[in-house]
């Protein structure tokens, strides 16, 4: 092929998958979201009463003693003053100290985060593997058994409460077979049962979404075109159907983050794993308000950040989502 001299090649342009304006707007929405969560949780815990009784002997403390501790904790001031101090400290990079531990509540929470993150990521991995395989087989399989079997299994799992699944697995693999520990996270084996419980809690919705997306893709023009071009059916199913069908799954993944964090808290409690969940539950029981605020703040920040990333990722995967 010869090139015509009057046609110059177009300069190569680096295409930014999404516009900076889109990213900035999403970012600002995220920042306001986090501020909103902090304000709501601050008001909520403070409306719940003073934490003073958790720090004195409520039976034998005198009124003077209670008043002294109230002053020490700052609860002799009105809520709006405490909120102002709270925001001022936050902007100064100072998260309030835990009443029980005497150290920064954010540091405490960040110390526990790796355990919860490990649980959540392991659960996500299990959920993705189980959910995507079940969704793919159910969406592309031939015959009633292949199409309905995985769906039935997922619906059954969905119908059983996570707590019950956890207890069943705990007693089967921990008590009856003694293959896996039923408590703690002292080795990788301690991760297996919690990850299974967590993964099975999100797998059904992933499977259903993926299956529906695959079925809609199977009927699309680009799939018929690929098959007409003679591309091997397995290649079409995997690449043209399977990959394209992932877009709604990615969007769902953002929403599942909240489920994963909530599920991790439940699983920590069930298996005696000292993560964010145990810390938060204990803080609630002991009225350690700074820790409650820090746990909620971090959970919300992760949820919002993941959804921000998911929104951007979805815009990259599907140009129709992009604004501008």
């Amino acid at each position, binding site marked *: 092929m010869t090139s015509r001299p009057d046609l110059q090649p177009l300069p190569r342009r680096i295409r930014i998958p999404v516009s900076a304006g889109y990213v900035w707007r999403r970012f600002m929405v995220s920042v306001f979201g986090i501020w909103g969560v902090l304000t709501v949780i601050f008001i909520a815990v403070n409306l719940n*009463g*003073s*934490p003073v*009784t*958790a*720090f*004195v*002997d*409520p*039976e*034998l*403390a005198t009124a003077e*003693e209670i008043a*002294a*501790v109230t002053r020490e904790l700052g609860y002799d001031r009105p809520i709006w003053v405490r909120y102002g101090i709270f925001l001022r400290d936050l902007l100064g990079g100072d998260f309030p100290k835990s009443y*029980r*531990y*005497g150290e920064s509540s954010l540091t405490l929470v960040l110390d526990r985060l790796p355990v919860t993150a490990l649980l959540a990521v392991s659960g996500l991995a299990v959920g993705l593997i189980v959910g995507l395989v079940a969704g793919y087989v159910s969406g592309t399989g031939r015959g009633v058994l292949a199409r309905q079997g995985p769906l039935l299994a997922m619906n059954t799992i969905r119908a059983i409460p996570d707590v019950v699944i956890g*207890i069943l697995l*705990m*007693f089967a693999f*921990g*008590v009856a*077979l*003694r*293959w*896996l*520990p*039923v*408590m*703690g996270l002292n*080795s990788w*084996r301690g991760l297996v049962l919690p990850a299974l419980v967590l993964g099975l809690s999100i797998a059904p919705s992933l499977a259903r979404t993926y299956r529906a997306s695959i079925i809609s893709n199977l009927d699309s023009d680009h799939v018929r075109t690929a098959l007409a071009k003679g591309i091997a059916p397995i290649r079409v199913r995997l690449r043209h159907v399977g990959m394209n069908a992932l877009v709604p799954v990615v969007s769902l993944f953002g929403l599942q983050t909240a489920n994963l964090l909530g599920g991790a808290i439940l699983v920590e*409690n*069930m*298996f*005696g*794993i*000292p993560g964010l969940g*145990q*810390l938060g*539950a*204990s803080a*609630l*029981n*002991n*009225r350690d308000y700074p820790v409650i605020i820090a746990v909620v703040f971090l959970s919300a920040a992760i949820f919002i950040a993941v959804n921000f990333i998911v929104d951007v990722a979805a815009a990259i995967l599907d140009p129709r989502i992009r604004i501008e």
Partner: protein
Amino acid sequence: MTLPKFGRLVTSLAAGFVLLAAATPFATAQELRIASNTFATLDPLARNPISSDYNLHAALYSTLTSVAPDGEVVAGIATSWETPSALEWVFHLRDDVKFADGQPLDASVVAANILARIDPQKGNLISTLGKIVADVTAPDPLTLRVALKNPSVEFPRLVTGLYLTAPDHLDGSAPAGTVNPSGPYKLVSFDPDGETVLEYNPAHYGPKPDFEKVRFIVLPQVTTIIAGLLADELDFAEKLSRQDSGQLRRDETLTVGALSSYRTLFYRINPNVEPLGDQRVRQALNHAIDKQAIIDNFVDGGVVPVGQVLNPSFAGHNPDVPAYGYDPEKARALLAEAGQAGGFDLELEFAQGQNQAGDLIAQVLAQQLGEVGIRVSLTPEPFQVWSERTADPAKAAGLSENSFGGDGTLQASLVAFASLNNRNHADDPEFDKLYDALLAAETFDAAVEIARQANARAHDFAPAIFMYAQPRTYVTSDRVEWTPRKDDRVRPQDFRKPQ
């Protein structure tokens, strides 16, 4: 996938699981694993430690005196003690006690510990010692003299909870969060909501405990505790209800036991809620409850109904004061006499998970009170909500679940119904006089006699529905032996290896 391939996959998976099982580590013979509630603090000087904290304190720190499993006060670092006058106690100390860093633990250190607890400037506002100790001196390293504001015949028992810390901890110069133990164990790691690990402290003066390493594992869920015991991942757990411990009894490797503890369970009556200010109504509530039926159905440990503050585990229990008999007719008659023949509405609040089968027993109470015309609504509450609400007479429900007597002292048990107790809203000047007399008693026999009178008074005044001695239930694995105690303590040094 062809069948042979499928078969190979199944075989591989099975082999993997077998390897997994083979890799499961078992606890070493030197390790003791105890299920625990959450902890609040390692610091014995902290304002309001919770019950589980004392288990760690008892393992890490020495005390002047100690309580044996049978309830007797025995030597700690004090080998003997006497009371030269009603307002003075003298303790004679061992000469070989030191902290892990080598500092000696002598009389001057003990004196400094007591002074720290009675000094409000150090933040220790809530201290029984602060209310009774006037002064403390150490004439020599092995002698401690304590001057009291008023006589305290139970002083050697009161100081069993005085956990002794090093001088640099008392003056705040020790690094925060560090522990300098003198007890049988030292701290390896501390996680109030996770796992706390202790190991044998070679600097301890006493005998070496049977288990060199101890793990306190915080487990909020009863299901996990049961699974842990059945899976041989725990050696000890307690406070399981009869329903929870049922399946554990069938396991031959576990021992399930219960005994009647110092604690007495009762439901406080708030006279500020009408018509509970009427003594006849309060007595009617007591007659309306079939305690024996509740014990038969929900409670282990051979406990019996009581009609007073102290249960039969105390010397101050009054054997001449019977439990209120179950008599719905009499209850109805008393209510009619008080002008409440038509019954009334009543709220019952209880802290979730604090007492064995507490939710079930609350339902039975509601049903039995309903039979005499009292319409009861139940309010289960998180512990802190319950704690705050019950201490406020304007907010407390008509009935609130409570128990008292954990440390086994007359003084700290009878205070349950003294006016100075914020949870007691049924103030009774007669009872207060007897309580003041108890604090001033100069001999133990005199204190016991006054306690019996106070019990009789409480029975008649009926500031609560008196129930029964709370049982202490426990489960041990076949790797350990443990002599049950009537108090609330779980001390790792008390566990023995089976002979």
